[in-house]
């Protein structure tokens, strides 16, 4: 199994007022194709920053990042936008759907920026919504949908452009337990269908859905799992299994 995401020594600094924040202090990580990787960490640990950089929303201060063959460290903002469009689907804690825009139009959005014509957009968006069980909610606005339904619309949007990677940032954080389980089931299903998933969470139960967990703290990867991969552990078996929860420092 090859690595679809390969991050080497990622450093991210940003200034907050006159204080320099070192969000990432040298993170190396590989995500295998088809893997369901969970990143855990307390708030402020740098897990979201890591996900944003791996999701091409942000540039690292230093270090290199390769996503599905593209070296991100040196590409233009326009190329980054293209990669977000074609390679990565996002699922956010806040759903991040466009208000005053119907479910089907929200799902069409990535295709709009990919230059797909409107008939194809509609057809594919409808199919994607059906896939997440919302075929009957096409014309509903976000405020007419429950939280779980909104998150399913967001998942449909993440799927629509056949991106190989889905980045989910606390996807169940704003949902009740039942809706959360539904969303996780859908993510499991996508993983089963061969998609690569990277999920950020701080909930142990949620994290255990993944194939592998890495812990991040103060901008550094803490436990040995990632280190093992980095040492050349990939390419042996399909999906490195999660190695216990010993380091449950969350």
């Amino acid at each position, binding site marked *: 199994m090859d690595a679809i995401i390969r991050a080497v020594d990622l450093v991210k600094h940003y200034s907050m007022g006159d204080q320099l924040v070192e969000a990432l202090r040298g993170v190396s990580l590989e995500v295998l194709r088809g893997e369901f990787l969970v990143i855990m960490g307390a708030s402020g640990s740098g897990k979201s920053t890591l996900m*944003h950089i791996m*999701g091409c*929303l*942000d540039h690292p201060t230093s270090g290199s990042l390769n996503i599905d063959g593209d070296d991100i460290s040196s590409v233009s*903002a*326009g190329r980054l*936008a*293209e990669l*977000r*469009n*074609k390679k990565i689907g*996002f699922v*956010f804690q*806040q759903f*991040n*759907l*466009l*208000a*005053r*825009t119907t479910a089907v139009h929200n799902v069409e*959005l*990535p295709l*709009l*920026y*990919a*230059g797909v014509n*409107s008939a194809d957009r509609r057809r594919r968006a409808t199919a994607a919504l059906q896939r997440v069980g919302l075929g009957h909610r096409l014309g509903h606005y976000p405020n007419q949908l429950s939280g779980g339904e909104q998150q399913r619309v967001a998942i449909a*949007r993440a799927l629509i*452009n056949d991106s190989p990677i889905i980045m989910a940032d606390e996807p169940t954080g704003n949902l009740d337990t039942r809706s959360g389980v539904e969303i996780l089931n859908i993510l499991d299903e996508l993983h089963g269908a061969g998609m690569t998933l990277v999920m950020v969470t701080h909930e142990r139960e949620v994290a255990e859905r993944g194939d592998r967990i890495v812990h991040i703290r103060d901008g550094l990867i803490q436990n040995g799992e990632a280190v093992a991969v980095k040492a050349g552990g990939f390419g042996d078996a399909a999906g490195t299994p999660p190695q216990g929860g010993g380091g449950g420092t969350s």
Partner: protein
Amino acid sequence: MKILESVITALTALRANKMRSLLTMLGVIIGVGSVILLVSLGSGARSEITSSIQGLGSNLIVVVPFKMQLGGSMMQQGAPQFALNKFTLKTMDEVGKAVGSSDMVSGEIQRTIYMSGDRNRYFGMINGTSYNEFSLRDIQTSSGRFFTKAEEESARLVIVIGQTVARDLFGENDPVGQYVTIKGRKVKIIGVQEFKGKTLMFDNDSISWMPMTTAIQLFGYSHPNMIVVKAPTTGSVNATAGKIRDELSKTLASDEYSVITQSDILSFAQSITKILTYLLGGLAGISLLVGGIGIMNIMLVSVTERTREIGIRKAVGAKTRDIMLQFLVEALTLSLLGGAIGVMLAIGGAVLYTAIFHLRAQVTAWIIMLAFVFSMLVGIFFGVYPARKASRLDPIESLRYE
């Protein structure tokens, strides 16, 4: 993303905020509407003045008893000094001599005075002229006739009245054959002047005409305010004017008379109305500018309000260019739609203006085009800054924005 998609996205966004879009457009609507309307009024006034001056007849020469420099400014010239009027009946003879025939010359002695009918009084201008005034100025009577040379020579108490005078004094009755009392003398109405309408705010039908000889007796004043001359042909106007100047210079000082041709008046009037039109257009242009700033203001507010939307769009693959285009198209749509509504309102306003004030408003294609192009430029100019601001937002910062 294609341009068409940007337009659809922009329209959807504008429709989602109908009230705000309308209020934003209002600035441009008023701006474009007032530019077109005011310039139309200006150019309408101009063409009205032009045609009424041309209506005098291109062969016409006017001699006035004061210095009139049509090229210079009105301020320099000052008000005409009637007190120093050196024109006499002899002056008319001199002009007649210069032209070669007194048949082509008519003097005018004007007084604004009360005329009493059976029940009403009318305060209006009486023009004491020669018998040939109507034929020189090409005016007709709608009923009755103008006075004759014999009536002029014997100073008969006859008068030709304007339509407004007739209606005010006699209502629907035919005034021909009736009498009006002027300064205690009964004057017989022998004709009614054809309908002339208004030139700007002046009612051409408020004037009455009587023989100059009669006017001199009634008013006790014998200095013509104006002498009207008809040159034999259009081509001989300047030569004739020259002859008149030569003749008058023998008896009058250079500041005691002016000889003016129709083309002098025309170019003068046009230069004044041109300034008027530009002035009105400029004033209205300022309101269009204010409308443009309104668009920029709303677009900036909109960028802040929609930070999260921009973040979402960027997260799913919108490029800087796409966001820029979306916001620019929104600003353009507002300004162009506002411009279109402004054009329609201006045309409606011009129609209304004409209907109410009976003044011409000339809505020309070029001014509509100009206002439209200008409103588009306003949209681009004031849309670019907010659009750039929107397109440069950092996707993560935008997504975090509450």
